[in-house]
């Protein structure tokens, strides 16, 4: 089954009187249960591609399919529902909700989904434990370090077991040990729940865990190789 299919998508930004092709006739198929690593020099179009797959940004042309549904023609509300049900996002800037504690941030998606309070509690505490943030559940984002916030953001993205996790530089602020722990967690989810991962990263360590390495440059895929994950 195909988790994500992009067909000939383009996205152009105007910067002054110059057109920047962030995505340039890009096509890619990602199977369910795949573990994809997106790599490119800075400005290569990774974030733009993730946003297009997550329905945060609509490409200028081409088709985007997620969970067998064509999403590039959906309304904002439908896209929101799709993300809520199927997609976990880890943003490049971790983007926690400042008025909510770590645990409440993690519970947020489940709460919008309408998961009962008890279930939310146990799930959020369990996932915080897994990302190594036990005892920090009552802190607000402003009271945590960058790496800790990043881990809360990861916990928030995976806690409701989405079919697809889109992560933009999830290890950017983490030391090597925490990075490895996080990647172990991702790999485990990938194995046990066949969660599909698409991760944009510069981090060599992350690349070792990927089943598939996709290299981009100037909005195009320049290299696409399968590899045996670490």
């Amino acid at each position, binding site marked *: 089954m195909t988790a994500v299919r992009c067909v000939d998508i383009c996205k152009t930004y105007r910067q002054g009187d110059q057109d920047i092709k962030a995505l340039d006739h890009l096509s890619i198929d990602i199977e369910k249960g795949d573990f994809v690593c997106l790599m490119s020099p800075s400005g290569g179009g990774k974030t733009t591609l993730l*946003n297009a797959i*997550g329905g*945060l*940004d609509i490409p200028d042309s081409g088709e985007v399919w997620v969970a067998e549904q064509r999403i590039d023609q959906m309304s*904002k*509300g439908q896209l*929101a*529902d*799709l*993300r*809520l*049900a199927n*997609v976990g*996002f880890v*943003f490049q*800037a971790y*983007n*926690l*909700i*400042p*008025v*909510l504690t770590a645990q*409440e941030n993690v519970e*947020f*998606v489940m*709460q*919008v*989904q309408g998961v009962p309070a008890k279930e939310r509690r146990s799930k959020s505490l369990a996932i915080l434990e897994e990302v190594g943030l036990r005892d920090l559940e009552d802190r607000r984002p402003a009271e945590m370090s960058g790496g800790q916030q990043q881990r809360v953001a990861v916990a*928030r993205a995976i806690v409701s077991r989405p079919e697809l996790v889109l992560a933009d530089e999830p290890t950017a602020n983490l030391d090597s040990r925490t990075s490895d722990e996080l990647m172990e967690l991702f790999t485990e989810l990938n194995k046990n729940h066949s969660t599909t991962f698409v991760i944009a990263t510069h981090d060599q360590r992350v690349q070792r865990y990927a089943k598939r390495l996709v290299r981009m440059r100037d909005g195009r895929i320049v290299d696409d190789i399968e590899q045996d994950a670490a």
Partner: protein
Amino acid sequence: MNIVLRLAWRNLWRHARRTWLTIGAMVFSNTLLVFMISFQFSMYGLMIDNTLQVFSGHMQVQAPGYKDDQKMRQVVLDVQPLAERLRGELDSETIAARGWAFGLASSEERSYGIGIYGVEPEFEGNVSNIPGLIKDGQYLGKSDAMDIVIGGMLARNLRVGVGDELTLLGSGLDGSFAAAVVTIVGVFESGVKEIDRNIAEMPLGAFQEVFYMEGAGHQVVVLAPTLNDAPLVERRIAATLPDNLVVHDWVALQPGLKQAIQADMSSAFFMYGILVILVAFSVLNTQLMSVLERTHEFGVVMALGMRPGRLGRLVMLETTLMGLIGFLLGAAVGALLTYWFSVNGLSYPGMEEMAANFNLPGRVYPQVSLLKTLFGPAVVFLFTLLAAVYPALRLRRLHPVEAMRTI
């Protein structure tokens, strides 16, 4: 707790000072509205009661043209039996017959043109406060005695007092010359200049004799239990009246009173309107600011899968919470303030003048009532919600990626 509610509540206290300032504006205007509206309507009530209880009553039965042209011959025939019948049918004592004539009142030294009421002494006190305002002597007694009570200023002008005699000259119902000598039994002080200077009352029987009325009079005055009961009573009376008589309500009898109240009310409500709009704009300003500065965060929440409509509801909910606090505090403070004045009374400079015009006491005790307490704050609350609609609707246009790019 519901996530939207929790977010709304926390967001409210993110800028506690700003929120309190906005709530403060609501509380201030709500307090003012509650107090002013309570005070204002207490004034109107007093104005109406006090004015109507001098002479006009809540309604009067008259000959059809009498109200606009007070000719002597526009009579109500057999006025006393009519009043008697109405008292029986309505089972009410606050109904009294009257006659009215102009005449010249002369003492040994001076003469003045005055208006003379012929009244039923035993019932007049039920429809008018004049009998209770006798300062000297006493009110009228027997219905055919040649007695008279006059206003205090008239007494001073004529240089007479209780026990003195007055000569009345006028014209009778048939146009003939009418004259009588009457004895002053009492002097009243109503506090209203025109009345104390120009009005006298004598028993209806004697009045009919002096002015050749042959049992006729000019009005049957009716006071309903309260102002609110008046329309019902009026309908009942109208149903029993013969064709040659009409019943006029207090608005017809005292057109100036209703107009004065309406004029005062429209200028007051114009001011209230401005106050409410100012509050609404301060809410609009606060909410617009708070939405703009949270653009980034709203982008995140939307990216996580919250529908834009739900975000709009969040902003509305924040405003509702803020508005509710303002509503409750404002209504409470306003009611307490009004209550304090309802016990201690209130007077302000310039009120004396108004008081004299409308026969009011110099001190007003505004009454606390649920309706008057809730009306102003409810309007403010409504406009508060309206003011938040625009900021809330703006969120529908929010684009998650662009929103997350702003800081």
